């Protein structure tokens, strides 16, 4: 479990992280979102004891970063931003070194290294010098380094950066699976990643939390959330819009375009109201020819933009 309490970091006059508090429990995969420079990496560096907080503190599995940094470090695996790895080592010897530093030796060490190489699809490059690997492989070597000791906590700074779509998918599956029994924080600015991996997301901007919740809950913050998009054939838009706008709980209706010779309309509900069934039955009564009918869930990118550009 990770507990962050009033964490603040200042670099000179710049406040990179401003009084941040949150808790991540076992079984949670927390997506840490925010524009570049929002303080994601700085926060992670403080949790991993790489940076010392200016004020506030954090604890990992009960160990405090200020008082017990070495014990804290035993709890997690960490993938730093840009996946730094020693360029002059082979993949296998690098992972062996990490394994030794994690306290393994002998056959246990060999087994851990082999298993991790297998898990991270590194078998065909294990004797290669890291220097000679492509960005995607380096990223996976660094990821392998983080999970080698099967830590209860994983802290991953942009884990899928530089991977191709297939590799991204594999790594996400891996994180998701590990997230069932671990406590995971991952930072990203790929919003689809939040949907596919995270059970919860925190959006930070200028060092402060601006949104916190499940991906669905965040999406509900979108003004699109609950809106109905439908396309209707062969009816003049001048008669459709006033009609849609007059239905119960409807806040606003507009035409947003045209598709396959049909006008496409979007109908926004009054706050938190469900309008889909009203519209569906009203349109059926009118016997209008409806081609598409969608209830919008809301869009993360829109929410992201809203909360981070205020």
């Amino acid at each position, binding site marked *: 479990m990770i507990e962050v309490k009033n964490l603040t970091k200042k*670099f000179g006059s710049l406040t990179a992280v401003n009084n941040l508090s949150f808790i991540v429990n076992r079984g949670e995969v927390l997506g840490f979102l925010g524009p570049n420079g929002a303080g994601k990496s700085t926060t992670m*560096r403080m949790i*991993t*004891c*790489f*940076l*010392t907080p*200016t004020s506030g503190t954090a604890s990992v599995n009960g160990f405090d970063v200020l008082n017990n*940094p*070495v*014990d804290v*470090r*035993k709890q997690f695996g*960490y993938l*730093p*931003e*840009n996946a*730094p*790895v*020693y*360029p*002059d*080592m082979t993949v296998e*010897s690098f992972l062996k*070194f*990490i394994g*030794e*530093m*994690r*306290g393994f030796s002998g056959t246990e060490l060999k087994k851990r290294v082999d298993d991790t190489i297998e898990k991270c699809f590194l078998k065909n490059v294990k004797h290669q*010098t890291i220097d000679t690997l492509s960005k995607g492989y380096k990223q996976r070597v*660094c990821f392998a*380094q983080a999970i080698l000791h099967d830590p209860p906590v994983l802290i991953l700074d942009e884990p899928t950066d530089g991977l191709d779509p297939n590799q991204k998918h594999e790594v996400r599956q891996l994180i998701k699976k590990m997230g069932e029994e671990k406590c995971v924080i991952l930072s990203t600015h790929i919003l689809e990643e939040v949907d596919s991996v995270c059970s919860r997301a925190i959006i930070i901007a200028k060092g402060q939390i601006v949104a916190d919740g499940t991906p669905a809950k965040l999406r509900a913050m979108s003004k699109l959330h609950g809106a109905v998009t439908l396309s209707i054939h062969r009816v003049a838009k001048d008669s459709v819009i006033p009609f849609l706008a007059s239905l119960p709980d409807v806040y606003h209706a507009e035409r947003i375009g045209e598709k396959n010779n049909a006008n496409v309309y979007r109908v926004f509900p009054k706050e938190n109201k469900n309008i889909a069934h009203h519209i569906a039955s009203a349109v059926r009564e009118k016997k209008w020819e409806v081609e598409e009918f969608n209830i919008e869930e809301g869009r993360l990118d829109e929410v992201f933009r809203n909360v981070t550009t205020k």
Partner: protein
Amino acid sequence: MFHYIKSIVKREIKGYFNSPVAYVFIVIFLILCGFFTFNVSNFYEARIADLRAFFVWHPWLFLFLIPSIAMRLWAEERRSGTIEILLTLPVTTGQAVIAKFIAAWIFVGIALALTFPLVITVFYLGNPDVGAIITGYLGSFFLAGAYLSIGSFTSALTRNQVIAFILAVVFCLFLVLAGWPPVTSALSKFASAGFINFVAALSFMPHFESMQRGVIDSRDIIYYLSVIAFMLFANTAVLNSRKSG
């Protein structure tokens, strides 16, 4: 705790030999040792079976060669970002500093040991003083350690290896020359006599020279060890202060 240090030392030494740095360093060191001993000091013409002509050059050779090894110690870790891996493993900064220093020192020790043909040569030519050869090597090794600790410290100050190198050379040069009259007289213009004596006492040279004469004085050993300990402590402090930067 020791097993962490051991693992880092092992990794570092492997790192030296996995890169061309080690081989270039060793070859250059041996060539220069040979050149100065035979061509400049005229080892054969002196007709004395000892290694004074060899050791006397070490403070000057080390002045450039040791900083070139030490400059990458921390600057390279910071530049490539691997410092973030190293210092988030379950080790303290101090342990990492000590481990990287020990590895570099062992590496320089290996380079020094590879000058053994000279020892064979003097034994072939005559009956050298074995004690003086042993203390000579020991003195050289400790001197290298002191240079390395300074280089390791300056390497932690910057992510630019060139700056780390120059700072280390200047720092070491100062300690080599600290007791030299031109330096003390320059200092005497603005410093008290007590301070000048203190600076002069910090110089490497008296400690180096006494060991070349075959004398092992515990004060010399303590001197080198305290220089190393102090520099590594400062090194750790610099790295830790960066955390709260």
